[in-house]
């Protein structure tokens, strides 16, 4: 998958889980401040990403997801 494809797929998951608009999801968007995710949202998001990308995301990795770009980078690495 290209970075753009990964970003699009992540955006779809974020829009479905966090009830935000697609145009508000940017690479530099922060989950907490910009997308309004609380701790439960983050857990739900990680589980939804695991399903969408068919990967396992450890809590220790998920803790480092501050911005959308962090998730894109992580999944790019995973899907190599």
């Amino acid at each position, binding site marked *: 998958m290209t970075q753009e494809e990964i970003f699009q797929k992540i955006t779809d998951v974020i829009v479905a889980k966090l009830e935000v608009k697609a145009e508000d999801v940017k690479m530099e968007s922060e989950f907490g401040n910009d997308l309004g995710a*609380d701790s*439960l949202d983050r857990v*739900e998001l990680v*589980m939804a990403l695991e399903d969408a990308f068919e990967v396992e995301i450890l809590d220790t990795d998920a803790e480092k997801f501050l911005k959308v770009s962090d998730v894109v980078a992580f999944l790019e690495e995973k899907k190599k």
Partner: protein
Amino acid sequence: MGKLTGKKAIVTGASRGIGLAIATKLASEGADVAILSTSVKEELAAKLSAELGVQVKSYACNVADSQTVQDVFKQIIADMGTVDILVNNAGITRDGLLMRMKDEDFDAVIATNLRSVFLCTRAVARTMMGKRTGRIVNISSINALRGQAGQANYAAAKAGIIGMTRSNAREFASRGITVNAIAPGFIGTDMTAAMDDATKEKYAAQIPLGRIGKPEDVANAVAFLASDDACYITGQILGVDGGLNA
């Protein structure tokens, strides 16, 4: 029309005693019910379905086993389409005075009565979170609150349920999921029939409302907590004990 019409419920330990009364009550209020027990009870499910006009399906599930719970709950949620209500009722006793209590008897009761609540709750949490609504009712015991000689394992497990109930109530509250526990007193079931007569008489004499409880008394309280009427109640431990713990 029942107050649970259209709801999808899962009841563990539902083949007899309090669990069966709960499953029957939820079904009579219009809920479709998955009844879990150690072995499949096709006839019982068919009888309840026919009598109450809802879908009742039986599943075999060792609720103390993580993988089994994950697999069976996945199947149930696929079969019913969703889950609105979980009643964690499954429980066993392995009574014995502490000095003579075997490790296996302690561990088995903790696994079936307490660990199961964690496993089953986790198995429905994601679905309920996504729906932004849900009802979880855990069956504790008056002995969790008062203690009972010979029940170190059972009372510890049932007290653990109370701590878990309060924690989960706080954790899930922002998603519209309520979590409450019921602490039944002395209820006439197969399980209490195993108690010796002296203990039974001692209990009965102490009950302010003057009678041993019926499984239906507990089931009525579960149906209330599972309904929309109880939407502002969470993290509570409701005694259904004839005043025994008043």
